[in-house]
């Protein structure tokens, strides 16, 4: 009987002690891998005003939809040098994710999909193995038209590949812009 009383007392004490630790407030987590912003800058070859395409979603996976902006129209027959910049703006200062993608260039690739627009886009930079990476590209505008340009970033695609349909991997970014060639 004594044994049991002792056991009971011991256990109750244990329970009380363990349930008394004070918890400090947890720290906020700002996810480092979130990409909030994609900016494509299209600079006309031979000079002129650059056009920026941007999609920005400051709450990441939260309920707010991304804000998509296009600064202007493309000119028929013009050729543009394009660069892509990815940011995580939930961090302060904002983190440049493009650097990470370029460091792991053989695991990433940007694809350019054009719908309805008379234009072509091709990657102008390569990964370490000489396969396209696509953070830099050339956009050639054809005749006047309207349509879409989609940037798709795939993680761990098959490399080399014949295009998006063949690439596999996981989609890290998919951003579509409505464009006009005038």
């Amino acid at each position, binding site marked *: 009987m004594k044994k*049991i009383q002792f056991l009971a007392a011991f256990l109750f004490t244990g329970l009380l002690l363990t349930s008394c630790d004070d918890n400090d407030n947890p720290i906020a*987590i700002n996810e480092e891998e979130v990409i909030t912003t994609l900016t494509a800058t299209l600079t006309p070859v031979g000079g002129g005003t650059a056009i920026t395409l941007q999609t920005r979603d400051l709450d990441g996976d939260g309920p707010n939809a991304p804000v998509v902006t296009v600064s202007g129209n493309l000119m028929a027959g013009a050729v543009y040098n394009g660069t892509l910049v990815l940011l995580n703006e939930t961090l302060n200062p904002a983190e440049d994710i493009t650097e990470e993608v370029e460091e*792991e260039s053989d695991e990433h690739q940007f694809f350019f999909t054009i719908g309805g627009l008379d234009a072509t886009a091709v990657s102008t930079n390569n990964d370490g193995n000489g396969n396209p990476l696509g953070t830099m590209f050339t956009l050639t505008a054809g005749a006047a038209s309207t349509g879409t340009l989609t940037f*798709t970033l795939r993680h761990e695609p098959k490399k080399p590949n014949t295009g998006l349909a063949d690439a596999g991997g996981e989609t890290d970014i998919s951003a579509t812009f409505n464009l006009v060639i005038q």
Partner: protein
Amino acid sequence: MRVYTSLLMLFISITAISQNCNNTLSGKVIDLHDNMPLAGASLIVAGTEQMVTTDAEGNFSINNLCDLSYNIQVSHPYCLTKGLTVKLNGNEIKNIYLEHHLEELNEIIVNGLLVNKKLNTIIEKNISEEDLERYNSGSLGDALNSLSGVSSLNTGNTVIKPMINGLHSSRVVVINNGVRMEDQEWGAEHAPNLDINAIGNIAVIKGAGALQYSGNAIGGVIIAEAAKVPVKDSLFGKTLMTAATNGRGGSVSSQLTKSYKNGWYGTAQGTLKRFGDFETPDYVLSNTGIYERNASFRVGLNQFKYGFEALYSVFKNDIGILRASHLGGAEDQFRAINSDRPLIINDFTYNLDEPRQEVTHHLARLKAFKRFNGLGKLSLQYDFQQNNRLEFDVRRGENSGKASLDLALNTHTLMLDLENKLSDALNLKTGMVGRYQDNFANPETDVRRLIPDYDKYDLGIYGIVDYSLNDKWLLEAGARFDYTFIDALKFYRTSFWELRNYDQLFPELVIETEGNQVLTNPELSFGNSSATLGANYFINDGYTLSFNYSLASRAPNPSELFSEGLHHSASRIELGDLRFTSEVAHKFTVNFQRKHEVFSFSVNPYINTINDFMLIEPTGIQQTVRGNFQVWEYRQTNAQLFGVDVDAVYNFTKNILYKHQFSLVKGYDQTRNLPIINMPAVNTQNEIVYQNSKFNNLRLSIQSDFVFRQNEFPDNNFEVFIPETQTTELIDVSTPPDAYHLLNFNASMDFAMNEKSMLTLGFSMTNITNTRYRNYLNRLRYYADDLGRNFLFNIKINY
């Protein structure tokens, strides 16, 4: 009248005399649990009042019996008395199995059986140790799948989540050696953390009835117990080894028990299991391996007046999740679902890569009991569980290889129970339980917490009575009340907090604002009542009719309350609701059964009405820079589930038997008049077993497993724009796969090595026809087929 009676009597005696009355019934009386012969058992033949006693080897022989049916009563001092009917036609040899009266001798160990005894009116199914051993390289869920009404929600083929009558996760409570498992069981892709090789007996209670453990088991309770230790001087053990071709791996499990006549005993047990990638008939399921290590130790003293037991077990499991199931957004989902093969197939490997899970579960339990004259038996139990769950996703940059989810859940439980025999016919069991739980989500993952940090306090009190009205009727009633208090610290995205109007509803919960997040302190309390009421009517000849009503209440789990964000493994955004109240279920069951040596069966219809049932359903599409994701939100509704489970066993001859089972369940959301998602399809299992005890206990069985197509499902399909093709495509996440039929074969033989050791060799084959199939209840069915043919080789040594 008297003349007629005399004539009748005369006639009967004449026929009796004219019959052959030189028959002998002989055989052995054997302990059902360890197959040991029972000496000193007495057999009484009703009518002739002949009585014989078994010898030291358990043998008996009854002479001068006629070609008639006899009722024989078999009793033994430590066993439950058993009545049986034997029809003689010539001499007959018959072995009689008796169930040890465990309550007196092995009280501390066999809670499961105590539960069974107490819950007579509740539908309960058992799996014996022998059957469990056939699943020794699988998991608890695999073994439970062999019972009618029990199915599983799978993630691949290593994460097997038991489902009882269509319900799972928080609605199914797992009791492991008297300890309620607290292992993040709310998650559909979190399997129970216990080693199938450490279990001696499993009982499944299809309802909320095990009130001494929980009041919130709306689906049911699974009670797993270690094998009993006999009160005698002995040293024994067993080793099981299995090798399998599919997965190119196997398992080794060993246990050793030392026991003494004075009641002291100790057991040590360990399991090691390793498989590489599994395979379908056509391709490798890349990254589906498993590596499991378990150990457990028990020490105890078991006497009639008092006893105690200390138990410690550790369970560690690394599980790979199909690589092709890790997706970006809806576009990836479209590609994956519309490809008939997984998008990633690599060569076979034992390596586990991301995505994967790493779970460690420690369990320590101390239990003691003492009997007091006049008061009854008082038991006190303390248990501590520590569950650490790590989930690794495919990540980028410096975060590559870092866990995305790192939860540590500590649970302390103290239980005090009193069992009291108020009279010969009336038993009372009462008790109380206190539980403290602390969940910690490690911020070093650098991923927002899926489940927040919280402290949870539970206090429960219960009472159960059973009353034997007479030989025919047994009545029982029980009630329980639980109080739950949750104190959480949760970061919400400000955009979500405002969208839900929480900023208007709960402004007092906000502690601070940080960037685009708010830290809140929800303090939630729930009072839950549960009850059970039942009656058993023993008809005769082994026929029993039982009725049971159970009321169960379940407080919302952390995921239903706090989910808010992307659930990677499901490729969808999941949103919980802070305003949820407890769900309350009313379940009525009827069970009609017959226990007979030739034809036994049970038919068990039920209806379960659940108010404020929490379910998750798609509500829209959310755009992010990453692409589109389907949004799934939890909602409360009124649900109704009903169905029937049928089991039957027919003995064609002494050596050949046929087993049948059939399960049907339907579930509807009554508010919206829609079927509930993930209800098991109608299925039936049929098995023919040949067993010959005279030829090395040869056992051969062929089993057919037919699963119908689920035709009732909610339409959760959605459309998404695919830039590559410039088209809008339908993503079919709803349509269930086709029906399938699997054939399995099993063979085993025993060989005596010496007086004390026995070798059992086994061979089995699953999916003999190498059928391609997909299972509606496998969460990875969108991406890949299920397992192809598998050959398994087993060696068991008992010593």
